[in-house]
């Protein structure tokens, strides 16, 4: 679906993208993470054809991405808090109808198409912002309207740049459900999704593949699980001792902390798995309120970046 080889881009002699190459297949869901200013927005704009890469080869669904947009067949949906598809002083209804008219052949008016749109409308509670003028909407409300607009054109490729900023938790989950539902009812031609985000939960929830960009270079490109194993090797078990004493010297763990009854064990998942330690603990004492967690995602990302200050290391 998307082919990008050796893309380079420089703004006023500041190299923003260095030799970026990746391929995305039809229907894949890819997440892109990176620090502010790491070049991920520039990459988005190149894929959309808004920006021209200095060098490198970019194809979206077989077409040159910066083709005169009049002649382009592929439809790209774009959702971003900084830029808007909707017209500033028009109601949401007008803008969305305009979108429908702009892509007449997008909808084969099959049963599942219309149904998916109604589902999205109902799920994101679009009814109460349907008649509002865009300039009077709050950020969260506007993002819902943007999402509907992008979905409305039945895009081949859906690029989302932090689509849930300004939304509360409940609305975020609704949007994810919409995306899942929208993909399910398009079995024949599933939508490829490119999600740029800072929040890891979003990544976990939606994407099955992750590309990490740091200082304009791709430093990780692979499945999310692999990323977790590779960079999140430390696990944490915390529990309370009901009775019996524990001596941790002979256990295969990195370190432990005891304050009163609460104990916290940090172990390395690459050498030992949680259940073995649990078995040992259970045999020696009766323990309650057991928690087995990974170290939080932020530390994972931090390790990823620290390790990759040097030139890019592909898995």
């Amino acid at each position: 679906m998307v082919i990008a080889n050796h893309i380079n881009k420089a703004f006023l002699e500041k190299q923003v993208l260095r030799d970026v190459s990746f391929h995305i297949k039809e229907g894949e869901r890819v997440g892109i993470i990176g620090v502010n200013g790491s070049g991920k927005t520039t990459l988005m704009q190149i894929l959309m054809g808004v920006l021209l890469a200095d060098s490198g080869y970019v194809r979206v669904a077989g077409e040159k991405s910066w083709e005169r947009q009049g002649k382009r067949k592929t439809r790209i949906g774009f959702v971003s808090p900084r830029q808007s598809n909707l017209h500033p002083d028009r109601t949401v209804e007008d803008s969305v109808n305009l979108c429908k008219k702009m892509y007449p052949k997008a909808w084969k008016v099959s049963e599942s198409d219309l149904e998916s749109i109604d589902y999205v409308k109902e799920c994101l509670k679009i009814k109460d912002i349907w008649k509002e003028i865009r300039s009077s909407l709050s950020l969260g409300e506007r993002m819902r309207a943007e999402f509907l607009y992008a979905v409305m054109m039945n895009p081949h490729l859906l690029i989302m740049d932090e689509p849930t900023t300004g939304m509360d938790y409940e609305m975020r989950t609704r949007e994810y459900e919409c995306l899942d539902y929208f993909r399910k009812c398009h079995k024949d031609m599933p939508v490829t999704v490119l999600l740029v985000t800072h929040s890891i939960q979003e990544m976990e929830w939606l994407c099955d593949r992750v590309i990490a960009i740091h200082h304009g270079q791709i430093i990780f490109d692979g499945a999310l699980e692999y990323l977790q194993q590779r960079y999140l090797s430390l696990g944490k078990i915390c529990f309370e001792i009901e009775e019996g004493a524990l001596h941790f010297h002979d256990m295969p763990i990195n370190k432990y902390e005891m304050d009163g009854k609460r104990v916290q064990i940090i172990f390395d998942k690459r050498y030992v798995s949680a259940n073995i330690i649990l078995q040992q603990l259970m045999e020696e004492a009766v323990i309650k309120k057991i928690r087995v967690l990974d170290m939080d995602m932020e530390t994972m990302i931090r390790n990823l970046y620290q390790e990759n200050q040097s030139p890019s290391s592909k898995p």
Partner: protein
Amino acid sequence: MEEKGEEILNRTVIRVENLGKDYQIRKRTERFWKDIFSRQYEVKKAVEDVNFEIAEGEIVGYIGPNGAGKSTTIKMLTGILQPDRGQVFVNGIQPGKCRVDNAKNIGVVFGQRTQLWWDIPVKDTLHLMKHMYHIPEQTYQENLKLYSDILGLGEFMHLPVRQLSLGQRMRADIACAILHNPQILYLDEPTIGLDIFVKENVRGFIHEINQKKRTTVILTTHDMSDIEKLCSRVMVIDQGRIIYDGSLLDLREQYGHMESIEAKGVWDDVFLEEIKRLPSVSVTQEENQIMIQYDSRKVDSDKILFLLMKNQRICDIKVHEQSLDGIIKQLYVCKEVRENGIFRVY
């Protein structure tokens, strides 16, 4: 009436008594002509008898879904809005009545909108603030030095706001809001749009400033990790009413029961049946991964783990407590709270 309260450890800084506020919203009818002449208004209760007290030095998280009355309450605290019912006391002053005195010792930071002058350098804006808040020269220099260390202002002090990145602008905004040593700092979604590292820095700044200057911080946000990392106390507002007011741990005690265990390995049905028989347990299976949801009040995690251990072919186990988001979402829905009104835990 100043609250002298020696017996209370720290002075009550903010006291709110059955605060209320209503909005008139113009109903927009369909037909063009009818709108011009007939103007119907419907009254929407934005905030409904809100009561709470905030002591000095506390960091309070103020959360709620969009349109729950969150920003309305904050506006009334800062004196931007006059309350329709009830009173607000900030350091003994009514912000609604004497806005200027109240403005002298509060700092406000808006996440999405900057208060700095757009095209003059940050250094000059801070200088202007010195004149505006009549900060004595000595404290001004002292604060300037302190904050430029903590917030790392040195690198972009001379740049106009136009050329700053989002993270830098946020740091400049914070510096500008606390230059005059305010007693209370209101933060309106300070970490929106920032990436993980800058978020962490910002949280670090707020924590450090709270420790050093004992500034009371009131934080409204959608990002639960802000709350977990910063706030000692949480207030949840929904449809204009405060439905929870207490510490984070108590919130988890009261409402964070739904724990879950994820285990990867090879499973056979007989084994799964045994687990299902346990009270309040639900099991979902995806190929080699099973997810067990259970209520920690009814059954403890070690019983389930004990059963799980019998099956040798497990390769990984994770035991999660409920995420803060999940808990609060449950709070909105759960009927039990609605009956006994505000659930107060100290």
